[in-house]
């Protein structure tokens, strides 16, 4: 279409979005160096001084001068933040004071050594997390970093230099930095400075660094730093082009897919792929694929998969789990669907036999990936011995039991064999031993079975093969059968043992699934938020063991909603970890990056609509990380809980919205009937008055009289309506004062009937009052008013005659007014005491004001009585309004 031509030159919306996300957020500038001593701190401080001179609010959060006068001199005149001193194992540690920095809130803060690990009682274990919080708070940060500390390069660095890098900073930190400044000097210069003692190194690290500061190492590190900076410049160029919609030299980026499995090279594969992706400026996705029906059951492997995926997530990859009957086909299908250009994977350590036949995962994938490039990452062979790999060792206790069982089983087989030999003549007793091997396999798995096989081999030889009771074999054919027995026993034993292990694992998975299923059923039955939280808390307590606490936001603050055990107090640290989890949508507390010293861990409950709350729990064993199985179960439970909470909240909102809507509807009806009731009398009065004034002299006298009479009547009607409205509002506001006298109901009934007969001459009113009715407490005038209202109602709705009954019923005086009208529909019966309800008609023509009955109800209840309606009353017609008042017990004519 011709009109869309310009659209191609629009800035990429994603690029612009990324830009706006940066606004309101501090800017990070990283001074990147190849090694300590290149002058990062110096460069940073010089820059800070320059800015300070320009009037920028610069604060030095933390800078290590290492006692060097040159650097210390640069600090003079700059605003330096006091350090936080903390004691750790009899030592004083000076740490960066994050809270003071947040409170001070400068425009720019300088925080040295980004890779530093904080003292244990700090909010975050790592300094880069402190920096992230500063940036979130809108403070610009300058910091320094050595290239060796970058997470994705850590393995390369340790391979090149032989020094293990422990303190790492995620690549995301560098990627999201606004500026990266490379501080560079040549390796020779650096070594010279080192020799001149210009580079400060801690005493303890001196020996380790002797090997580090070699020319080769420094050159390699320098190359890494230069290359990383160049990559960044390249990225920025592309970003700039995108944001400004300049027709780019860039092409559609590469898209990398990384396959990881449960083997120990998963981590290496992910890191390699991360570096590749950065170099190619490509987005990447990490997948783990499982063969349907052969799901991994080994917890260690599951954990490795989880770890690898988590690492990938940290390095900026998307992650995805796949499942399919043919894993290779599944990966390729996914790759094609997502337009993946390159696949990265490790060499699979399949069974050596398979590998020979080219049937390993890697080989098959390489063969079948016709349109995608495949990188195969090699890494040194694992340290785990071959036997350990094909024969997973059970836990020590179980191993011991298995070995004892093997010995017992073989001993039993010897016994049985001896007895059989006495009774029968059997050519070969080896079957008995095979039975023992299989029994061990079925109960204790392959290790026990193989032990039993070896024992059987010895015992069989010793007890049953001549010469008896020696370990020698006389006949060659016996030797052959003994060897065959050993092979058969080992093979069947290990096969049966594996089947046993597998069955055990499957059973465990089934149990987990069932437990989860039960939980989801429990949740499905819980509609209210409290029920959901309670169900989740009890279930978690059962599976996790420790105390559980659920927190949800209420009036802007996180509040404990449910806890098990119920009376738990959260410490200040726990509260701030919970808040952290809630506001940052991250796990906090025990064994995390935030407040790791707490006893509890806090996890956000996330739904597509955002974080709905936080769950805190204490792990079963504070010393051990959560096992992979428990971790998986926990994640599943929390996901379900979050969804259920979300649903409960939505249901609550829907109910409230519906109630509001009903209320709105009622209000509209109320308003329209009110305005009708007020306007009709006003209209006729205005009309009549203006008619009389303008046309009166042209009218016959009778018409004039009639108009005057109508004015009087309508004015009375209006005044009655207004009086009702006022009564109603007095009752509702509680301003109505009801006297609590001892009154004789008979008097009130008589007075009301008199008034009714006067006011409603067309109405026939009968009375039937029991003699000697006791007194009730109340207000004689109000009771009369109520009765009159009821008679008036009977007149309006009920066929011209009304009966008033009064009698004792138990301890109550019951007064009723019955009419002979058409009655009230059963569906309307409960609503007739509502305000502005009028006998099935919302327009309310000719009916009353819709207030009479609700006023009556208000008055009766104010006097301590009850009121109800019955319809039909007599012979399928009519309505009866019943009032009950507690009778006052009288003693000799006086109230008791």
């Amino acid at each position, binding site marked *: 279409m011709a009109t869309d031509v310009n659209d191609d030159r629009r800035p990429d919306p994603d690029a612009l979005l990324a830009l706006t996300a940066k606004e309101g957020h501090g800017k990070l500038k990283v001074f990147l160096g190849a090694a300590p001593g290149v002058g990062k701190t110096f460069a940073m401080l010089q820059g800070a001084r320059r800015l300070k001179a320009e009037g920028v609010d610069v604060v030095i959060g933390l800078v290590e001068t290492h006692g060097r006068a040159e650097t210390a001199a640069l600090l003079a005149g700059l605003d330096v933040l006091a350090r936080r001193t903390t004691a750790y194992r009899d030592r004083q540690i000076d740490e960066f004071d994050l809270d003071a920095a947040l409170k001070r809130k400068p425009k720019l803060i300088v925080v040295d050594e980004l890779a530093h690990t904080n003292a244990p009682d700090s909010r975050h274990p790592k300094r880069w997390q402190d920096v992230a919080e500063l940036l979130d708070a809108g403070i610009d940060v300058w910091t320094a970093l050595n290239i060796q500390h970058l997470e994705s390069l850590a393995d390369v660095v340790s391979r090149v230099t032989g020094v293990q890098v422990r303190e790492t900073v995620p690549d995301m930190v560098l990627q999201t930095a606004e500026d990266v400044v490379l501080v560079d000097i040549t390796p020779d210069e650096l070594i010279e400075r080192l020799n001149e003692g210009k580079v400060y190194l801690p005493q303890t690290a001196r020996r380790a660094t002797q090997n580090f500061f070699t020319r080769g190492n420094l050159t390699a590190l320098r190359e890494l730093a230069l290359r990383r900076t160049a990559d960044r410049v390249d990225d920025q160029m592309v970003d700039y082009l995108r944001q400004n919609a300049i027709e780019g030299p860039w092409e559609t980026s590469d898209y990398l897919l990384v396959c990881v499995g449960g083997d120990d090279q998963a981590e290496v594969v992910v890191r390699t792929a991360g570096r590749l992706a950065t170099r190619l400026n490509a987005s990447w996705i990490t997948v783990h694929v499982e063969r349907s029906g052969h799901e991994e059951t080994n917890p260690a492997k599951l954990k490795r998969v989880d770890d690898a995926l988590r690492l990938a997530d940290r390095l900026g990859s998307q992650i995805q789990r796949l499942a399919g009957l043919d894993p290779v086909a599944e990966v390729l299908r996914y790759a094609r669907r997502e337009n993946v250009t390159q696949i990265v994977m490790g060499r699979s350590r399949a069974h050596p036999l398979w590998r020979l036949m080219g049937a390993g995962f890697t080989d098959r994938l390489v063969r079948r990936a016709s349109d995608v490039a495949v990188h195969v990452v090699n890494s040194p062979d694992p340290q785990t011995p071959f036997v350990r790999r094909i024969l997973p060792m059970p836990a020590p206790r179980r191993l011991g039991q298995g070995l004892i069982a093997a010995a017992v089983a073989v001993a039993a087989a010897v016994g049985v064999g001896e007895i059989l030999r006495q009774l029968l003549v059997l050519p070969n007793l080896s079957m008995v031993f095979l039975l023992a091997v299989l029994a061990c396999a079925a109960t204790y798995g392959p290790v026990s079975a193989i032990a039993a096989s070896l024992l059987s081999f010895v015992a069989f030889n010793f007890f049953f093969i001549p010469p008896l009771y020696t370990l020698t074999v006389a006949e060659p054919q016996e030797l052959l059968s003994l060897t065959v027995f050993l092979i058969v026993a080992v093979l069947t034993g290990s096969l049966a043992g594996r089947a046993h292990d597998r069955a055990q694992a499957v059973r465990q998975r089934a149990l987990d699934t069932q437990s989860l299923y039960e939980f989801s059923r429990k949740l499905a039955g819980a509609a209210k938020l409290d029920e959901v939280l309670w169900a989740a808390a009890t279930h978690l307590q059962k599976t996790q063991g420790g105390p559980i606490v659920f927190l949800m936001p209420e009036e802007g603050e996180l509040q404990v909603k449910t806890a098990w055990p119920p009376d738990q107090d959260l410490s200040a640290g726990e509260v701030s970890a919970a808040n952290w989890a809630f506001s940052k949508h991250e796990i906090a507390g025990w064994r995390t990056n935030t407040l790791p010293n707490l006893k509890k861990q806090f996890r956000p409950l996330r739904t597509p609509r955002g974080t709905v709350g936080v769950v805190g729990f204490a792990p079963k064993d504070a010393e051990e990380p959560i096992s992979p199985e428990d971790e998986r179960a926990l994640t599943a439970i929390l996901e379900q809980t979050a969804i259920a909470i979300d649903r409960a909240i939505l249901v609550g909102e829907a109910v409230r919205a519906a109630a509001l809507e009903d209320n709105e509807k009622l209000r509209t009806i109320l308003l329209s009937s009110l305005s009708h009731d007020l*306007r009709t*009398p006003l*209209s006729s009065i205005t*009309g009549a008055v203006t*008619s009389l004034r*303008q046309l009166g002299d042209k009218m016959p006298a009778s*018409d004039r009289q009639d*108009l005057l009479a*109508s004015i009087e009547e309508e004015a009375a009607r209006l005044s009655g309506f207004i009086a009702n409205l006022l009564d109603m509002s007095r009752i509702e506001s509680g301003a109505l004062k009801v006297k609590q006298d001892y009154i004789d109901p008979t008097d009130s009934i008589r007075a009301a009937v008199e008034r009714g007969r006067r006011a409603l001459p067309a109405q026939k009113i009968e009375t039937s009052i029991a003699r000697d009715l006791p007194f009730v407490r109340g207000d004689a005038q109000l009771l009369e008013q109520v009765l009159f209202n009821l008679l008036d109602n009977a007149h309006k709705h009920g066929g011209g005659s009304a009966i008033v009954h009064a009698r004792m019923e138990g301890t109550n005086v019951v007064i009723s007014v019955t009419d002979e009208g058409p009655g009230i529909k059963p569906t309307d019966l409960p609503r007739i005491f509502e305000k502005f309800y009028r006998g099935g008609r919302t327009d309310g*023509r000719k009916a009353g004001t819709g207030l009479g009955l609700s006023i009556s109800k208000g008055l009766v209840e104010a006097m301590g009585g009850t009121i109800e309606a019955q319809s039909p009353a007599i012979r399928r017609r009519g309505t009866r309004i019943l009032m009950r008042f507690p009778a006052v017990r009288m003693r000799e004519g006086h109230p008791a």
Partner: protein
Amino acid sequence: MTARVLVVDDEAPIQRFLRPALVASGYDVLQAETGRQALHLIATAAPDIVVLDLGLPDMDGKQVLAEARRFSQVPIIILSARDREVEKIAALDLGADDYVEKPFGIGEFMARLRTALRHRAKGGEDISRFEADGLTVDLDRRLVSRDGKPVRLTPKEFELLAILVRHAGRVVTHRQILSQVWGPAHADDTQYLRVFVGQLRAKIEPAPETPRLVLTEPGVGYRLWAEE
């Protein structure tokens, strides 16, 4: 011959004062309490004008109006409450001639009645001249003058004025004006109308800031003031 007025209202007090007032003003009065009765009387008793309340017990007043319009062009004046604006406009768009808001004085009511009857007598749309308050409009010759001096109007302004003149004394809804001057596609663009009415007033009103000729009926439309 005295004109015959049919009053349709189920409120007895309204009927009670309208009847003697109408009789005293020299009209014959017919009364109906329900929509069905009203339709029957319009068809059989040939009233000259109908006064119709919109809230009736058996059917909606608008429905009565629509059915009546299928067989009769009798002028119909709506009685309606102030808060039922939407209903009022719908009724006018359905072919009611004018409306009176409750509560009303008898003078105003009678004036509306007379205007409607006069229009009917002149044959509705055939009015071609209008004179009031120093303004003269001749629709046939497309001449407009103010105190004897010619006034220049744009074609749209003239069309707007022409519609008001043809309905002089009666209300014309926003929708009616918009769809006749700008076409049905613009029937809801009330803001156009405000601008044009402002321009028209500036040219024809003696004092445009306090209009006396083109009167606003808030939320409903405009009415050209007409002498009795």
